[in-house]
């Protein structure tokens, strides 16, 4: 199993450009998440999905969009990049059934710089 994979590893964007951060998992997990980590800060949840076709906002969703058309993939879209979106982005997944607990498994991250 590759686990959670993210592409690209690094990206530099100009203000106003758009891009999609890719995330895929091969563990058949139903839940997937996007976090961002700013320097010296903890991870903050951007969006999450409980299954294909179902997404919901996290703590910091503004400026981002997501979709979940398959169990495996959960791309994050930045439409109009701003310097405030300079951060490291982590995708994660977990498998949950009713009342259970499972840890989240993280990808290696995408380091995004907006200039």
């Amino acid at each position: 199993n590759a686990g959670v994979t993210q592409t690209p590893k690094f990206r530099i964007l100009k203000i106003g450009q758009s891009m999609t951060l890719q995330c895929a998992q091969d563990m058949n997990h139903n839940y997937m998440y996007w976090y961002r980590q700013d320097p010296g800060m903890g991870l903050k949840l951007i969006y999450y999905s409980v299954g294909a076709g179902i997404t919901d906002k996290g703590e910091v969703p503004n400026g981002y969009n997501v979709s979940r058309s398959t169990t495996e993939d959960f791309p994050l879209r930045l439409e109009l990049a701003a310097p405030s979106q300079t951060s490291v982005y982590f995708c994660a997944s977990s498998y949950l059934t009713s009342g259970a607990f499972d840890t989240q498994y993280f990808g290696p991250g995408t380091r995004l710089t907006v200039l």
Partner: protein
Amino acid sequence: DQQVKQNSPSLSVQEGRISILNCDYTNSMFDYFLWYKKYPAEGPTFLISISSIKDKNEDGRFTVFLNKSAKHLSLHIVPSQPGDSAVYFCAARITGGSEKLVFGKGTKLTVNP
């Protein structure tokens, strides 16, 4: 407002000694607490968790203690090894099946040989 606080940005210990990392929380609606370890240029990896109905959980060299009355948890690493040098994040899960985790800012642990 920070619901999960790690007040020590860094900690340095000698190899073989105990490392104690602390975490405080403010929300009584957390039902699980977790510790994640993160090396540079990698994603966080799960280390250990504890349910809010327990006060201790142990896994090899790692033990997590939970004091609900003080809203405080700690991670003990005994003995500390140079490979333990990393950033440690405390996280808490909100009760109710949302599966949302709230993370602290992290503590950078350095274990000196």
